[in-house]
């Protein structure tokens, strides 16, 4: 695979990753579930969002390290 095709493929992978994380943040499938308080008296879905944001940060860090070129 040529370099430009590699970059296109990489871009697509990261694009799908970020779109996937965005879709997870919508999480319409959990909206009507009963409230369950967990750690610090916060509902489970709040902790899910904390986790989602940490995942997003890791994804951006990986993107910055492996895909984001200084001459982009």
């Amino acid at each position: 695979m040529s370099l430009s095709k590699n970059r296109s493929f990489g871009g697509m992978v990261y694009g799908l990753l970020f779109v996937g994380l965005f879709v997870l943040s919508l999480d319409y499938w959990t909206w009507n579930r009963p409230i369950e308080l967990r750690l610090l008296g916060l509902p489970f879905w709040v902790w899910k969002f904390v986790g989602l944001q940490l995942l997003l940060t890791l994804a951006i860090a990986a993107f910055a390290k492996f895909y984001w070129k200084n001459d982009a």
Partner: protein
Amino acid sequence: MMTYLIIGLYLFLTFGLSLIGSKRSHQTPEDYFLAGRGIGPLVLFFTFIATNFSAFFFLGFAGAGYKIGYPFYAMMGFGTAFAALSFYFIGFKVWKLGKEKGYITPPELIGDLSGSSLLANLHLLVLIVFTLPYLALQPIGAGYLLESLTNGGIPYFGGASLLTLFIVIYVFVGGMQSVALTDVKQGILMFVLMFLAVVVIAGKFGGITAANEQVYALKPELFSREGAGGFFNGKKWFSNMILWLVCVPMFPQLFMRFFVSKDARSFKTTTILYALIPSFLFILPVMIGVMGHLSFPDLVGKEADQILPKMLSLHTPEWMAALIMTGALAAFMSTLDSQLLALGTIFSRDVYRKYFNPNLSLAKEVRVGQFFIVLLSLVGLLIAYNPPDSIFALAKQAFTGYAVLFPSTLAVLYLGRNIAPFCVLSIIVGESIVLAVFMGWLNTEHLWGFDPIVPILLISFFIILVGFLWHKLQAKQY
């Protein structure tokens, strides 16, 4: 007395830092307005977040936590973190172009890349129209804060004026160098003091877990996914998630910060940290707002927006309340100084120099910028004199107004000159929808249940796509 002493010490420290900044600042526009494009990763990160997290973060988040509950944290936290992606496809390109071509303001970049003065001026007009009310939020918040903190000792408008005057002095003296240095201090203070506020207030109720359980017993809807009063539904949630991605890079004070990075590494570091911070910072004021129901039930409107200073005044000793509220003061100051500098720069280069005095010397350009900084601060105070009922509602109008610029900015950066007329049309149509919503002619029922940003983006991108395809077709025919 302790309150006045702590506030005084904080302002003294701020002024000291601004003087250090002024010594580094030379009287060229690039140096005064952009700190010579030499800001390293740590200062760059703090100046981004301190600028972005304002009165809206301290008072608005706590107020929204009180009124809506924890979904507000999730929406703002993830939405803001996701907006970090725009630092790559908008911010980094802006940075490179700025270094290459010497751009200092957003309209300058837009106008030169697109070859369209009309587009540049339209962009300029939108920035001015929406920054002025948003700029006024900071003295409004500061006025409320100081009045509450001193139990009326410093009246609302007196506090607003005092803070504005102080900020004008240090921005005037040191430009972006002063602003960036004070942002580091203000950013650190915001984090530390907001964390301290949660720990101390929750401690009064037996700890964070106990406090949340007590609120849950009273108002379980604050813990539901949709929030109190069913505030969020699926479409509103989606709309808000999209909004932050597209409006954050368009704030003039943030857009101009894309120009100041020293190198690519600084830019990337800032992007990563910007995504990380909301996950643990944003929940803090929301938590205080939620806990507010234990001490101040049934607050509405402006009263609810003041839940943070109310809780501090009730539950912490005077000195601690004053100390924590300097974090809030820091938030106001770090945003107002950047907004004044951004608009002052824009008026100086994109209005005065462009239309009244094209032969303006570099040194005089800085003086003109300083003049506009003073003038704009007075306009902001005039707006703050009769403040609106809800800080959040005012901020959100500005955010949507800025977001209208996103499709055209993206198009100008990536599609070249021919797209300019369609960018102009996209902004006119977009801002017309914003106006129609503001005037009550359109509501979410007319917009298929979404907030205005969703149909605005769909229509704007469609217009630009039509333009792009049309030009491709023209090029093929010739």
